[in-house]
């Protein structure tokens, strides 16, 4: 029982993680895009071996809220495109 529960949580977390990364890549602004990717990776890694059920649940909830924020802000960033920066090179800002 506990094992299947853990497996279910693991799948939820992985799905959330991938979805947040996928959405984050859509920011037209270099700095926001990089930040979202970096911060997400660090946060998920930091809590990788968490076992406290309540904490995990709270973090999943927070990640879901963040995903919604990212989705809305990505739309905004596509409506009002960020100009690409000097370090971005050829395909910058075309995402």
């Amino acid at each position, binding site marked *: 029982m506990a094992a299947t529960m853990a497996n279910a949580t693991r799948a939820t977390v992985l799905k959330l993680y991938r979805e947040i990364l996928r959405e984050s890549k859509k920011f037209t602004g270099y700095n926001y895009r990089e*930040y979202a990717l970096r911060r997400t990776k660090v946060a998920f890694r930091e809590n990788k071996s968490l076992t406290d059920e309540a904490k995990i649940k709270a973090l999943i909830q927070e990640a879901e809220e963040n995903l919604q924020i990212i989705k809305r802000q990505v739309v905004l960033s596509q409506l009002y495109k960020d100009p690409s920066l*000097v*370090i971005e090179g050829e395909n910058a800002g075309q995402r």
Partner: protein
Amino acid sequence: MLPGICRSTVGAVRSVVGVSRRHFLQQSSSLGTVAPKLEDAVTNEDTFAGRALYMDAQSTTPLDPRVLDAMMPYSLAYFGNPHSRTHSYGWESEEAVEKARAQVARLIGADSREIIFTSGATESNNISVKGVGRFYKSRKKHILTTQTEHKCVLDSCRALEGEGFEVTYLPVQSNGIVDLKVFEEAIRPDTVLASVMMVNNEIGVKQPIPEMGKICRAHKVFLHTDAAQAVGKIPVDVNEMNIDLMSISGHKIYAPKGIGALYVRRRPRVRIEALQSGGGQERGMRSGTLPTPLIVGLGEACNISQKEMEYDHKRISALANRLISKVTGQISDVIQNGDPDQRYPGCVNLSFAYIEGESLLMALKSVALSSGSACTSASLEPSYVLRAIGAAEDLAHSSIRFGIGRFTTEEEIDYTAQQCISKVTALREMSPLWEMVQEGIDIKEIQWSQH
């Protein structure tokens, strides 16, 4: 001969030892004509494509997308006046404002009732200095501050001097920090307020606010601190630090411009004479309808910076160290201004000897930088903060401030360092002073002809 050298190096090295102040100002007036030529020589290889990188986090910061997201509903559906008491439109806005007030208070260890919303740190500083001064003027008429404060504090003090107050502008040591002994000795029986900035906006040094708090409490003097560059970046607790008034600015912590807060202690109570007459909002201390969306943004920014402080601080420190070690590893004669330890790491102020900051800024077009505070960057005057730490005129003129923030990347640091190294090297190659130094001539010994 020597005046000739002088003139030909105007763009690269404006100030030389022994040149009189007046002479120096005349020279700077020709900068406009000399600089573009110089700029061509230094930057012709990079007609860069794209927008400059942003490395000026002390002047302002971009909005955090989470902040904007929290604000949006209050710019759209929830537009009510938070002071409207008769309908739900008002209640919704009021609830949002009070939530934000609690978020600001929590970040600094205060009570919600001690937070007043203002338009920014400039207004908070004005209310603190003038408001406290005027309220207690019948009993106490002396104010203590430092020479490295933000202009809005210095000018508020000047205004009070015009009203019969006496102000002591304390010097700082060469590391930018006020000597506590000098501070305590400057307190008089009629001192009402001490106003000292927590983190300096130009050189990033931290003043010993907790120690000053103890001293002020013992002498029954109110302590105001301009924490525009500190709150949200380093831990601040108004009770542990014995702070009586504190200014906060939204746009330094990824919230919008035009919003800020003032902490005013309730116990022991600090009284203020309001600067603005009106509807009596904010307990009479700051009349005017509260801008709900901006306030919600400030609250969310405080909430985020509380959660992210440790991560941001660690990361920004690492980026700052990376920048400093790359630059100093490749260029000699670089001086870091301000105390090396008692500082906020995200503000790196470097002087590059033998070249001029203004020329370097122009050469570094692909990075948005400044030589100091935005308010003085229009003038060619060297920064009064750098002069106060006793930087020689030439070093005060050759400084650049690198502002690193939450959204700065490693790639940006590397690009900035590399640009900096190549431009400084190129500018120095054109500088006769640098040439003399390379030949072993001690330029401090040269008697420049006066004319």
